[in-house]
């Protein structure tokens, strides 16, 4: 498909913005990471595991709590929704049985928002969990796919592009070299584990076929992001401060 979709910054439909990831940037936190996609930058800090769980949580498993701090303004409903989505996504990638009756807190601070904020935050949180050595089943990569008025799917929009879109979807895919596949999961022939979605949040109206199209594009792009994530996590030694910021 060689349609020329004129994006403002000259990217093609499938091209992601430049990615940058740094680990261990905060001294006091047990784990921290910053992730930026173009001009969208998010800082994540992990404290844990700490003793004790909150009142309604199951003490036989580890508990995760997420605090989302916007760049400006007070905490309102959009922030609470992000917290719940992040909490449930990260719960599904952590091995909760290893440290029962503990709480791990993840604090997300938005540094700048230029589109695709939630996927950026999920990627940052995942990198921060690795930095804090929290046991994980597999990693997660998040991507934003949007649908233009004319029906094309483009990836990783900027804020200006996001506002012009007919609809967009945030998708999170698992990423693993070797992973723990839960027993009895619906693992069909020909469907790789990397193609299942952990999380999906959509905005705007699109047809069902468009959504499935977004899923395919997201799966393809997630392999590129997974490769970048693994490279950047492996290449940085824990006390490497030369890549700070």
């Amino acid at each position, binding site marked *: 498909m060689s349609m020329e979709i004129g994006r403002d910054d000259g990217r093609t439909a499938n091209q992601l913005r430049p990615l940058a990831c740094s680990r261990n940037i905060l001294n006091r936190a047990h784990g921290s990471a910053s992730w930026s996609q173009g001009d969208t930058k998010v800082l994540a800090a992990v404290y844990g595991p700490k003793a004790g769980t909150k*009142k*309604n949580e199951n003490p036989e498993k580890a508990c995760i709590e997420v605090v989302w701090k916007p760049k400006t303004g007070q905490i309102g*409903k*959009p922030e*609470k*929704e992000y917290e*719940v*989505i992040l*909490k*449930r*996504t*990260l*719960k*599904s990638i952590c091995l909760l049985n290893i440290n029962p009756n503990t709480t791990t807190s993840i604090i997300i601070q938005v540094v700048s928002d230029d589109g695709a904020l939630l996927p950026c935050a999920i990627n940052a949180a995942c990198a921060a969990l690795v930095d804090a050595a929290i046991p994980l089943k597999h990693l997660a990569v998040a991507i934003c796919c949007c649908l233009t*008025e004319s029906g094309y799917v483009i990836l990783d929009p900027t804020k200006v592009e996001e*506002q*012009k*879109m*007919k609809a967009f*979807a945030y998708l*999170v895919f*698992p990423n693993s070299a070797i992973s723990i596949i*839960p027993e*009895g*999961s*619906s693992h*069909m022939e020909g*469907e790789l*584990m990397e*193609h*299942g*979605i*952990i*999380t*999906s*949040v*959509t*905005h*705007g*109206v*699109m*047809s*069902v076929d*468009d*959504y*499935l199209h977004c*899923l395919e594009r997201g799966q393809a792009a997630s392999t590129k992001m997974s490769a970048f994530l693994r490279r950047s996590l492996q290449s940085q030694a824990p006390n490497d401060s030369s890549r700070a910021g």
Partner: protein
Amino acid sequence: MVSANVSGDLSSEMEVDAFRRLFPLRYHERFLLDSIRPDARPLGRARDTSLALGAVASADGSALAKIGCTTMLAAVKMEVMTPPKESPDEGSIAIEFYMPPICSPLVRPGRPAEEAPVVSKQLSDTILRHVNVVTSFSGMINLKELSLVSGKAAWMAYLDIYCLDADGSLFDAALLAAVAAFSHLRIPVVSLNEEGRVVVVSEENEEGKSEKEPVNKGKRKLTLSSLPFSLTCILHKNYILADPTAEEESIMETLVTVVLDSSGQLVSLYKPGGPVLAYASAVQDCIALTRQRVKELKSILNEAISDMEVD
């Protein structure tokens, strides 16, 4: 109904209720093997749904929706306001979702429910959707219909949804109640008084007010395009369970909520994490179940509207 376990543990001597509390997952899986659930529903069927319009007499539009035991009361009140300068001929809608302590033993006055702001935001996203720069309108309600006098007066609709009983599928019931309340809505008749302010014309004093011409006599109902309906499903191993109860939601944590509008377009597919991954085949199955449910809900809503118009 006691599971015959090879290891011969406590379960062979236990009462059903105790087994249900102590080993909830095994209890439910015992039913899933026979493609049925503890309340005798097949996996793809939703609970009995009922809708009553006009439940709140003092509100301009209201509805009470029940899906199984989950009960939602929605009420719309209209107030006149001055529209903001950026959109002088548009009204506005404020949506709020409340989970008072009556709805669930887990909600107490000092401990608000975690789901309340999430459902509230999801409802505003679904009903209002974002009005983007290129197409001027995308959503169930055209905000321009809520305008009275361009630049001076417009309607502000306050939609309040109260959860009276939380037994799973909160978003589905809340969306159904909201859509029904807007379908039932009768916009009050207003007119301009001598000072040029918009006042509501009360029904009782009808005589001799010839100088107070009603501003919007002809338009009393909103035109609703493409009503959205939703279905929440649980994914557990290879099973897809439609319309879970609160017990099922707490045990099998992977939820997928699909919102379709009446023209079959996907308004939202919301899957907030969860231990089970959704492959494209599971996504297709959930969407197919939702399509069926949309037909059922449409007919329930139409029946409720026609019942009300008969009165």
